[in-house]
C-alpha cells in the first residue's frame, strides 16, 4: 500500500451551503468533496476481506475496490470499477439511503462513523462527468427492437443495458421531460437536473431513442408496441398515484398532494422567478408524512418563502423513514417536526382556502407487522395548527393506466405488477416490469437494480426465441 491509512473515527465532513442562505435558494445543498477530502476519506477504508459493505449494496458495487483506487489517486480506475455495476453513480451517491445500505454495514461504523461511501461514489462520478473527453461508442446493432415504458431510474437503466447489448431501444415517457421522479420529484437542491440530463444524453449517444408525451395505455398500448415490432417490453412506470388522507377539508384550496406541489416546483420550475407556473406563496405550511417525499416538500416550501414549515408525522423521530441526512438538513433549515400527531381535518376559511390543520396526539403501542411500534390515538387530544397550505405526502401507489389497458397483465391488490422472479417477467409473455411499478414506492437504487436484471432476462428471452 502506497499510502497511510486515515484512522480518524469521523467521516470527512461534507462541505455544505450555509443553512440560512440555502433555505432561500434552490442550489445544491451538499457541495461535494474536494480532491484532497476524497483521498483522505478513501484512506479510512480498511479493505475488509469479506466486504460487508458490498453485500448491503443492492447493485453489489465493489466498494473497497473503487475506494482503494481513490486512495491511490487513480480516479479513472475508480470510475471503471464503479461503472461496471451502476449506471447512475452521480445520482445514487447523492440519494441512496446509505445508512440502511452500504454504510450501515461498514466496519468502521462500529466504533466511529462509517466510510463515506456515497460521498466518494458521487465524487468519482462528478469527476468523470466533468471531463470533456468521455467517449461513448455506439454499440453494434443486433437487429432486435425493444420498448421501455417510463423514463425513471428503472427504465433508463434497462434501456442503457439493452442498448449496450446492441438492441434498438425506444423509451416512451408520459410527461414532456424524461427522468421520472428524478426530474419531477426530487428537487434541484438535492439532485441537480443537469446531472439527470447528462445521463439521458449519454443514453442517447448509445442510440437510445426517447419519446416524450407518450402515455402508454392511451396513445399506444402495450399490444401496439408489440405490433410495431418490439420483441420484448419493459414496464417501469413507477408508483405515481398519490394517496390522500380521506379526511374532511382535503379538497380545500391550498391542499396539495406532494406530487402536485413538487411537480409544480421542480418539473414546471415554479421556483424560478420568471416561471409561468402558478403556485401558492404560502406562509405557514404543514407537510403530512415522514419520508423523503415529505422532507423534499417541506424544504421546497421553505425555499418558496414559507416562514413556518411543520412536518406532521404520526410516529416519533426514531421511525422517520426519510434518509438521515435529509432529516438533519431539514432541521438545520428550520423545519419544525410535530411528531406523534395525526391529522383528522383540514380547516378552511369562508373563501375555501386552508386556514388550519386539526390533529390528534398519538402514542406508540405494540409493534405492527413492519416491526415499528404502532401509533395509537390519545383520547381527547385534538389540537389545531394554523397553516395556509397542507401538503399530503403519505405515499403513492402504481398508476392503474397500464394495468387497465393491457389484457392479461396481473397485478396484486395494491395495484403492483406481479413478476415471476428477479428478471421481472410478468404474466404476459415478453412483458417485463421493475422498479416502483412492481414494488410500490421504494428507492432509486432498487429500481435501477430491477431495470438491470430485467435487461438480462429480456436479452435471454429474445435470444432464446430467435434460436
Amino acid at each position, binding site marked *: 500500500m502506497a499510502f497511510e491509512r486515515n484512522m480518524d473515527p469521523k467521516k470527512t465532513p461534507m462541505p455544505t451551503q450555509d443553512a440560512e442562505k440555502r433555505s432561500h435558494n434552490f442550489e445544491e445543498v451538499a457541495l461535494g468533496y474536494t480532491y484532497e477530502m476524497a483521498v483522505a476519506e478513501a484512506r479510512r477504508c480498511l479493505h475488509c476481506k469479506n466486504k460487508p459493505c458490498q453485500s448491503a449494496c443492492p447493485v453489489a458495487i465493489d466498494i473497497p475496490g473503487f475506494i482503494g483506487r481513490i486512495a491511490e489517486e487513480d480516479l479513472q480506475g475508480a470510475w471503471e470499477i464503479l461503472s461496471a455495476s451502476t449506471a447512475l453513480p452521480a445520482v445514487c451517491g447523492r440519494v441512496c439511503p446509505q445508512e440502511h445500505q452500504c454504510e450501515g454495514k461498514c466496519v468502521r461504523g462500529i466504533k466511529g462513523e462509517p466510510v463515506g461511501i456515497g460521498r466518494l461514489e458521487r465524487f468519482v462520478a462528478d469527476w468523470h462527468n466533468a471531463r470533456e473527453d468521455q467517449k461513448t461508442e455506439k454499440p453494434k446493432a443486433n437487429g432486435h427492437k425493444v420498448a421501455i415504458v417510463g423514463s425513471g431510474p428503472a427504465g433508463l437503466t434497462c434501456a442503457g443495458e439493452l442498448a449496450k447489448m446492441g438492441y434498438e431501444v425506444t423509451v416512451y415517457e*408520459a*410527461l*414532456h421531460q424524461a427522468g421520472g421522479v428524478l426530474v419531477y420529484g426530487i428537487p434541484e437542491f438535492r439532485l441537480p437536473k443537469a446531472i439527470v440530463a447528462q445521463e439521458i444524453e449519454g443514453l442517447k449517444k448509445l442510440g437510445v431513442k426517447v419519446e*416524450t*408525451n*407518450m*402515455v402508454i395505455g*392511451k*396513445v*399506444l398500448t402495450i399490444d401496439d408496441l408489440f405490433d410495431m415490432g418490439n420483441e420484448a417490453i419493459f414496464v417501469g412506470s413507477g408508483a*405515481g*398515484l*398519490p394517496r*390522500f388522507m*380521506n379526511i374532511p377539508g*382535503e*379538497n*380545500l*384550496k*391550498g391542499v*396539495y*398532494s406532494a*406530487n*402536485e406541489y413538487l*411537480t*409544480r416546483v421542480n418539473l*414546471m*420550475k415554479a421556483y424560478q422567478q420568471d*416561471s*409561468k*407556473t*402558478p*403556485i*401558492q406563496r404560502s406562509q405557514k405550511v404543514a407537510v403530512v408524512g415522514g419520508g423523503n417525499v415529505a422532507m423534499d416538500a417541506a424544504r421546497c416550501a421553505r425555499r418558496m418563502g414559507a416562514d413556518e414549515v411543520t412536518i406532521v408525522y404520526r410516529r416519533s423521530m426514531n421511525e422517520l423513514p426519510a434518509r438521515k441526512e435529509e432529516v438533519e438538513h431539514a432541521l438545520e433549515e428550520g423545519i419544525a417536526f410535530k411528531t406523534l400527531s395525526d391529522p383528522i381535518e383540514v380547516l378552511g376559511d369562508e*373563501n*375555501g382556502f386552508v386556514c388550519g390543520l386539526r390533529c390528534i396526539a398519538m402514542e406508540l403501542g405494540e409493534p405492527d407487522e413492519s416491526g415499528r411500534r404502532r401509533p395509537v390515538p390519545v383520547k381527547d387530544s385534538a389540537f389545531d395548527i394554523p397553516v395556509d397550505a397542507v401538503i399530503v405526502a403519505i405515499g403513492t401507489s402504481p*398508476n*392503474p*393506466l397500464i394495468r387497465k389497458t393491457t389484457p392479461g397483465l396481473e397485478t396484486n391488490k395494491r395495484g403492483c405488477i406481479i413478476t415471476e422472479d428477479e428478471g421481472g417477467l410478468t404474466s404476459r409473455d415478453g412483458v417485463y416490469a421493475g422498479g416502483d411499478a412492481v414494488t410500490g414506492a421504494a428507492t432509486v437504487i432498487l429500481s435501477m437494480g430491477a431495470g438491470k436484471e430485467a435487461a438480462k432476462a429480456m436479452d435471454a428471452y429474445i435470444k432464446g426465441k430467435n434460436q
Partner: protein
Amino acid sequence: MFEIVKKEPLNATVTKMVVKAPLIARKAQPGQFIIFRALPDSERIPLTIADYDREKGTVTIIFQIVGRGTMELNTLNVGDSINDFVGPLGTPSHLDGLKKVAVVGGGVGCAIAYPVAKKLHKMGAQVHAITGFRNKELVILEQDFRDISDVYKIVTDDGSYGEKGLVTDALEQLIKEGNQYDEVFAIGPLIMMKFVCLLTKKYGIKTVVSMNPIMIDGTGMCGGCRLTVGGETKFACVDGPDFDGHLVDFDEAMKRGAMYRQFEAREREEECELMQKEVEG
C-alpha cells in the same frame, strides 16, 4: 413536434386549430382531451379534442383565449409547431344505446359538446342541441351544430341573436313540449352546468357533465384535478372528465377553479405587454 395545418378564428376570442398528430387521431374518442404546451417553457394546458380525422392524422382543437397559455398558443400560425401535444387523455363519453339526447353547450363549452353531438348523430340518435352565448359576437359552431341536430336552438343572454334567455330556459321548454330524453349532456361554465343539473334533477333525467378543473399531468399523478362526486374523490383526468352531473359537488369545483386567479391575472398582463412590445417593435 406537432404542426398546425389550419387556423381559423371563430370569434374574437375563440380559435380553431387543426393539428397534425397521427397517433392521437388514430385513437381519439368524443369526450377525450389533449394537453399541450405551446412553447418549451409553457404551462401544460388541457383542451378537448373537438374533432379528429383518422385518415389525415389530424386533431382539431377549439380554444378560448383566456390567459397566458392560450395566448401563447394563439401566437402560433399555420406551419408552426406546438411543442408538446399529448393525448388522447381521459375516459371517452359513454354514448352506447342512447336514442334521444339533448346536448347543451355554453360558450366555448360548445366546442366540447360538439364531438359528442356529432357522434350521437352518426350513431343514429336523435340530437336536440341547445347552445347558449352571452351575445351575438360570441356565437361559434352554429352551422356545425345545425348539420347534425334534429332540433337546434340558439340562445343569447342579451337576445342579440337567437332567442333571448338561458340554455336552461330552452331546455325546460323542450322538456315541457313532451320530449323525453334518455340523457342530457351539459357542457359549459360550471355555473351553467350546475343549473342544468338542478333542472334535470327536477324532471329525473340523467345528466352528464364534462368537468374542467385545473390540471397538470392529465394521467392521475398529481391529484390537482380532484373533484367530489357522490361524496367520493375522483380525478377528472382519468375518471372523467365526464361525470354524473347530479352527483358532482359544483360549489367545491367552482372554488377550486379560482385557486390561481391572482397569479393568472398578473401573467395575463405580462403576456399582453409582451405581445404589445412585439407588435410595436
